[in-house]
């Protein structure tokens, strides 16, 4: 592990050179098309700039952000609104007023009010769930054109009254006489007013995710320095990609009453010395996960246009990529909370009949540096593979030079419900740009779940 990390990211060869080198390799499979199953393609995908929560988006509501992504998608693809069969959005922390945020956003974004929409939730892989739901609908012939996306607005979260207060208020509503009301009011205590914040912890274990990530890092002997190095890599690569204009999925968003936001604002390459000064954020004082090597609370939305291949071609589109095999996994939410990619990767590769070597672009969700590196160590460990995965040999490491080359959730940001689409678009755009054929997207999620999907470049 240390050897790949000490590989200086600054000296990474440019993408085109790599493309040259890998295009001479022969793939184990020419394509992943399956007989008698419709091919599903990504026509295009967009996202709003991802912003640190509490910045320019802080006065919006989630459906405003989602609407911005949807409008952006309409502009980018010029898809006629009446051909869209269905809209699916992922979100995690729900605004109670707009619990079906997909519908509220679509109505305001100029989609037809005849297009049904629903919202899904699966923690950090909610957008992945939105996409794969769409894939299922198309592959089974139920729909031809789907818009899938995700949204998260961490600037505002539903803070509730305590259960006791809520009960009192509901009972008061039902009380008929003044006497009943007075007797209810007499039960009021000041501690009823203590608010209930949405828990950032795992419901089943009451452990916060950062805490779990710190333990995971320690369990896989990931050092603080390694984590800081990885975070620095993510920020540096994101900065480079932003500067070179590679993040083409970002669409500008004119925030009402504020300036037009054009780019992500969480990318902050720092120095190892600066990062080393931070104190651990979760396990104090000896932990290793800090604010600098964790993903930050983010506002953002994403949307993708997914179609049956023949429909896209008939409409004259040139798709970007195929969405191929995908896999959901889940494991113990306490000690394996963030190991989803380790479990999902070999399974999806096996399902598709590919090997690690066939993959040209890896796009893994970076919840924490420690989580990514722990996954690397798990994938690189024969002992882990034998004892916990029932495999004879280790999964193997994804080569770092193909891994999250345009930055990741640590630097670009991680709006829980929207990240999945960003990952797929990054993989698709990288394959287009770098000339590879297969991309692998993987992510972990609260609840001990995980997802992986193969993205195949659409032939030029």
């Amino acid at each position, binding site marked *: 592990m240390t050897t790949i990390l000490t590989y200086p990211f600054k000296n990474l060869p440019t993408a085109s050179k790599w493309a040259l080198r890998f295009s001479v390799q022969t793939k184990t499979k020419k394509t992943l098309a399956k007989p008698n199953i419709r091919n599903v393609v990504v026509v295009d995908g967009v996202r709003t700039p991802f912003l640190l929560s509490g910045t320019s988006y802080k006065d919006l509501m989630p459906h405003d952000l989602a609407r911005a992504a949807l409008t952006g998608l309409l502009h980018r693809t010029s898809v006629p609104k009446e051909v869209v069969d269905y809209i699916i959005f992922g979100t995690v922390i729900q605004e109670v007023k707009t619990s079906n945020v997909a519908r509220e956003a679509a109505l305001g974004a100029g989609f037809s009010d005849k297009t049904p929409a629903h919202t899904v939730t699966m923690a950090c892989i909610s957008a992945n769930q939105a996409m794969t739901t769409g894939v299922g609908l198309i592959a089974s012939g139920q729909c031809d054109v789907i818009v899938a996306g995700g949204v998260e607005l961490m600037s505002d979260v539903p803070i509730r009254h305590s259960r006791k207060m809520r009960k009192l208020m509901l009972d008061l509503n039902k009380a008929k006489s003044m006497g009943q009301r007075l007797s209810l009011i007499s039960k009021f205590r000041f501690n009823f007013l203590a608010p209930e914040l949405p828990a950032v912890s795992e*419901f*089943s*274990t*009451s452990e916060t995710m950062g*805490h779990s990530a*710190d*333990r*995971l890092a*320690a*369990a*896989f*002997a*990931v*050092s*603080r*320095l390694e984590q*800081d190095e990885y975070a620095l890599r993510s920020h540096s690569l994101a900065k480079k990609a932003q500067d070179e204009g590679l993040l083409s999925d970002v669409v500008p968003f004119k925030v009402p009453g504020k300036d037009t936001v054009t780019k992500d604002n969480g990318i902050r390459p720092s120095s190892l010395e600066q990062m*080393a*000064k*931070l*104190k651990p954020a979760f*396990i104090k*004082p*000896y932990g*290793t996960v800090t604010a600098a090597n964790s993903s930050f609370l983010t506002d953002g939305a994403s949307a993708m246009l997914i179609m049956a291949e023949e429909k896209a071609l008939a409409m004259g589109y040139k798709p970007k990529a195929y969405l191929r095999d995908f896999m959901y996994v889940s494991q*113990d939410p*306490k*000690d*394996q909370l963030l190991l989803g990619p380790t479990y999902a990767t070999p399974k999806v590769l096996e399902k598709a009949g590919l090997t690690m070597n066939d993959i040209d672009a890896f796009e893994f969700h970076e919840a924490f540096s420690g989580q990514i590196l*722990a996954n690397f*160590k*798990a994938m690189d*460990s024969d*002992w*882990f593979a034998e*004892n*916990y995965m029932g495999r004879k040999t280790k999964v193997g490491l994804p080569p770092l030079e193909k891994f999250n080359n345009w930055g990741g959730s640590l630097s670009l940001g991680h709006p829980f419900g929207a990240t999945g689409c960003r990952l797929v678009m990054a993989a698709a755009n990288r394959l287009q740009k770098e000339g590879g054929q297969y991309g692998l997207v993987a992510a972990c999620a609260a609840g001990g779940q995980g997802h992986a999907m193969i993205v195949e470049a659409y032939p030029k």
Partner: protein
Amino acid sequence: CSEPRSRYIRRNFTESSALLTRTHINYGVKGDVAVIRIKSSTSKVNTLSKELHSEFMEVMNEVWATNQIRNAVLISSKPGRFIAGADINMLATCKTPQEVTQVSQEAQRTFEKLEKAAKPVIAAISGSCLGGGLELAISCQYRIATKDGKTILGAPEVLLGILPGAGGTQRLPEMVGVPAVFDMMLTSRNIHADSAKKMGLVDQLVEPLGLGIKPPEEWTIEYLEAVAITFAKGLADKKISPKRDQGLVEKLTAYTMTIPFVRQQVYKKVEEKVQKETKGLYPAPLKIIDVVKTGIERGSDAGYLSESQKFGSLAMISESKALMGLYHGQVLCKKNKFGAPQKDVKRLAILGEGLKGAGITQVSVDKRLKTILKDATLTRLGHGQQQVFKGLNYKVNKKALTSFERDSIFSNLTGNVLKVDMVIEAVFEDLSLKHRVLKEVEAVIPDHCVFASNTSAFPISEIAAVSKRPEKVIGMHYFSPMDKMQLASAVAVSLKQGKVIIVVMDGPGFYTTRCLAPMMSEVIRILQEGVDLEKLDSLTTSFGFPVGAATLVDEVGVDVAKHMAEDLRKALGERFGGGNPELLTQMVSKGFLGRKSGKGFYIYQESVKSKNLNSDVDSILVSLKMPPKSEVSPGEDIQFRLVTRFVNEAVMCLREGILATPAEGDIAAVFGLGFPPCFGGPFCFVALYGPQKIVDRLKKYEAAYGKQFTPC
């Protein structure tokens, strides 16, 4: 200081280990930190024995003498076990109190040296840190513990009738304050890592690790060691202070305890409470209070001296010998003497009868056994399920479980699946009912399934008479309340319910019921002679029984007692006579079934704490009144009439081969029936009191009453 911390796991330290290989303790040097690892190769747990003690001194002397070493970490290499306490056998070999005092003083000196050494030592605690282990840990300058369920700290010496004899009584008050120290040492409760942190018993917690690149338990210990090393460096560099910040409440308590008058009041209150609870039968708690008091009021020199002397005298008296005997017996009864079962029991069915069935269910689901609970009616089944849930929820309120774990455990309670490996029947004690149930069950269970009858009186051979496959029918008897009491005596079983198990031969009343029944019969006789209930109860509790004799009948159930008495008298004859069973019969007919029906000898009401006599029983007693025999009726004789009948029957069971060993008999009597623990069980009692004196007593009572007292 983040740099060394961040690299802790990279193992940049080169470790040089001492050449000498010892049996219990070894150490290696990492940089300037000595890592002292305890791993007794001779036993499963680490105990502070003479050998370990001397090896520890050797190692410490080397550490202190090596210039390169600036500080040390003390850790156990056994996952889940730090030091379980001092070696009890070490005390058993001592012949005089002076010898024991010497052992104590040696330990005191070692720990004092450790405490005052210029090179700080950090105790890295994972697993049980009890008794002498705790005393060692608190002599270190800093304590780090893993925050998991297995890490417990405590001073259980009082359970063995002794006191912490290696400086614990002197150091603990300073660390946790006087009120908390009494609570710790007098109740001997186990303190989990996080509450230990709150009390100030440990300074830092380390999170346990899940799966990773090595087995989690091993890896957690290595992680603990690595974290402890960074803290050791921090301590040596004075970047970390061993002093901890006290909360406001703590500061206030500490302040009030500086007022002599307040202290005197605290001592007085605690002494009163101890007197009330022990009825003067157990000397250790009072001595503990005394020693702590001496240390605080007259300085540590006097305190240490008093500690070692009292330790010496306590270790030699009969109460501590009895309690230590019980401890050994218990260890013995937690082993499975029959080897691994042919087939693991994974699915279990439990049939009926309220409290007991639910109790067995709870201990089973708790151990992740898929359990089916069945009862005759939906309402009764509902009660059973509710009781299991209540039991689990209680643990949630105590923070021993999360609500999620509760739900997940509760999901082991399943519905109507009949592919079970074992059926435990807990229906009412009625032979024809038990026969019916057995036949019905046998019609649907698979061939390998074991049928266990939860009976306290019927011989298993009688129950199995209607079975198609009597070799698969066994008996199991659980003592209630199931989840708290420590004993499940069974005729043969390999369940994982975490019970202390004794195995007895088949026979009417087996062992425990057989011992209890003659005593119950004597209770009736004594009541018939006009001794009032409360006096009888106070006589039995002052002898050391946890509940009074009349209360015991109420607890067991008057109907159950009646069944027991009738069946055993039929089977075993006159020895079970004495009291007139008519008393029980009449009480049952009036519905006075004991606590469960709300009325027995006493009246039981929800939310009413004090017990009131059930005056309706008086009239029955009056009608059955018998004249007392003055020569054998004073208080002491009443106590001995009860106890000698119990003991006589126990010895009979051993002689007949019902019991395999006296140790098992002692354990079952103390933990199952509440035989006074200060006597260590009926067999221990015979040894302590003197067999001849007991025979003499029996003969005296035989002359007055007849054959039920004939010594065996």
